[in-house]
């Protein structure tokens, strides 16, 4: 090697595993256009050549709500507190769907993008981030549906619901869910590159998690013993707090929310570190 070259300006050095904390956020930022294009792609590809197109965003939660209404409210006779079941389920489903989407879709990133990842380099975090954003857009659209039905119940049915100022925290709730969904998703996607069994676990795991979240029943219905178990689930305080903000019925507690926030942030940090480690070698193991 020539010694006179040592002071040359290399723009990049490709090395084996660099440090665990070398996350290259600046590089990620320079790929922001790609994030937006991925969001657009996720949108367009799903509804091209469908007759109803984006209407499916409405149909999915509606049908699910009706199903829940018949099964849990009519057949199983599970109470929904003071709230009309339809409104109760729809709020729960809309919120839950966003979290589950973030989690579900980011958890298979390495496997479903292996073809692209195997050929081109770009910061891999672009993919899960774009998924979280495109799910957020879908969530926004579904929220419109909710607002429509909410208004109907408020104006025509004169239901006793109290919108209150805590709903101003709504963006913050969404952010926690996004953080948690993204964090869990990339943890699983990192692990599934080596241990594919996790894919199977995840499929029903998320479904089970829904039943451990007050989506189809209010937390207040539970005995204190179960309640404390359920509050260990970081999504529980979010769902309850959103319902409190919307209906004045639910549990709003700063400490529970702080717990959710802290939990989500830790999960995200663990996720990013793990993801960062895996993205460099996964092509050889997948």
């Amino acid at each position, binding site marked *: 090697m020539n010694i006179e070259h040592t002071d040359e300006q290399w723009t990049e050095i*490709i090395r084996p595993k660099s440090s665990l904390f070398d996350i290259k956020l600046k590089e990620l930022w320079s*790929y922001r*256009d790609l994030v937006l294009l991925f969001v657009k792609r996720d949108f367009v*590809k799903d509804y091209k050549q469908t007759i109803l197109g984006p209407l499916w965003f409405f149909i999915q939660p509606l049908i699910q709500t009706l199903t829940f209404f018949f099964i849990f409210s009519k057949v199983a006779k599970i109470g929904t507190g003071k709230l009309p079941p339809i409104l109760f389920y729809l709020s729960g489903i809309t919120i839950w769907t966003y979290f589950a989407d973030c989690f579900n879709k980011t958890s298979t990133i390495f496997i479903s993008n292996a073809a692209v990842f195997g*050929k081109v*380099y*770009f910061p891999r975090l672009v993919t899960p981030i774009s998924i979280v954003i495109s799910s957020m857009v879908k969530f926004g659209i579904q929220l419109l549906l909710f607002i429509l039905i909410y208004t109907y119940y408020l104006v025509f049915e004169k239901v006793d619901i109290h919108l209150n100022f805590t709903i101003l925290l709504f963006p913050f709730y969404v952010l926690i869910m996004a953080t948690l969904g993204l964090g869990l998703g990339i943890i699983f996607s990192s692990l599934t590159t080596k241990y594919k069994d996790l894919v199977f676990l995840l499929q029903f795991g998320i479904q089970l998690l829904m039943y451990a979240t007050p989506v189809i029943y209010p937390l207040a219905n539970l005995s204190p013993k179960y309640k404390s178990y359920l509050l260990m689930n970081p999504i529980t305080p979010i769902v309850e707090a959103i319902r409190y903000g919307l209906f004045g019925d639910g549990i709003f507690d700063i400490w529970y929310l702080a717990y959710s926030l802290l939990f989500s942030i830790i999960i995200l940090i663990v996720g990013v570190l793990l993801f960062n480690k895996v993205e460099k070698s996964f*092509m050889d193991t997948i």
Partner: protein
Amino acid sequence: MSNTVIRVEHLYKQYKLGVVSTRTISHDLNRWWHKVRNLEDPYLKVSIENDRTKKGSSDYVWALEDINFDVQQGDVLGIVGKNGAGKSTLLKILSKVTNPTKGQIKVKGRIASLLEVGTGFNPELTGKENIYLNGAILGMTKREITSKLDEIIDFSGVERYLDTPVKRYSSGMYVRLAFGVAAHLEPEILIIDEVLAVGDAEFQKKCLGKMKDVSTQGRTVLFVSHNMSAVNSLCTKGILLQHGKVIKTGTATEITDFYQKNAIGLNTSKSWEISSIYENINPLQIKLITKDHQPIEKILVTDEFGVEIIYKVNNSNYKPVPTIRFLGLGDEVAFATVNPTISSTNVAEGIYKSIVWIPANFLNEGHYRIGLSISTLAPLVIHYNDNDCINIEVIDDLNAPTRNEYKGKMQGFVRPLLKWENSKI
């Protein structure tokens, strides 16, 4: 004053063989246990040669082993080697798709690879949408793409189909569009992996032109191929890989020469001992020569060369008729040529030499085996017969007259320059 844009230093890449998911946890734990005790990774043992044909003793294999080379700005570097020599692994590391196990590569400037064009194309999206998406995947910003959009559309010639989903495209259009995006990246370093195999002739010409543009603009091209012909005519420098090691670096001509002389299985001569098993006629030597009767180093489509045979006649009762056969890698015979003159008379005992000249612009590019037989015709006696005397690769010149302007793969064993007559009627 040369400017090094890529420096590869002691680069290693290890792969694990066999079923990946079994026993990895135990290996992981073992690794971790060694790390805790500050010992070297037990699976990183150097120097198990990556020869796929031999069964190795280890589960791990070095796809690349101690690779070192520099690339100067403006070089068109051909990376050649047989399948499995480590070319693709090297490229994958260069394009950051996978990590090296040890060592490092220093890079100056943006690298774009055409490892496979059209990466990330989504069949449901329109041509235009895919230009943006693909461009962004390859590292362009939206603004850069917009400023190049017209050029890309023009280059790929799919203007009419821009708003059609690419799943309706013909494969040629698809590749053109994909290559168009990649070619307009304007990276400082461009990696190309045999994309020339696809597309029609006109398009291939455009691609080659683009490659030349890129290199004349002072940018650097890494061209990966196992096609000696393309390397010979496109590259300025080359490196030859074999079993994950660099065997030779030099100019493109040096590399192709070296490959011809040393590549496994290739040889340009064969000798025989004088032996009693050749009772009547004893072959002594067969070799390829240039038209100046010098030992040949490489065989170009556009060069005349000779096949020289030397043999000893022990018994003057037999008329020796040497025959030379050119065969493909299988047993199919491309052509055979019989010595038309020597058998007209019996020849006296002694040592004889016959040369058959293969004209320039006659063979196609590719691998040939050359077989020799020496017979007597009436009555037929075969004194010697072997189809595997010589093994060569004929290298193409993309400017050969037998191609006109076609740059793609030519069919057939031979593609002679024949007389054509053209007239308007």
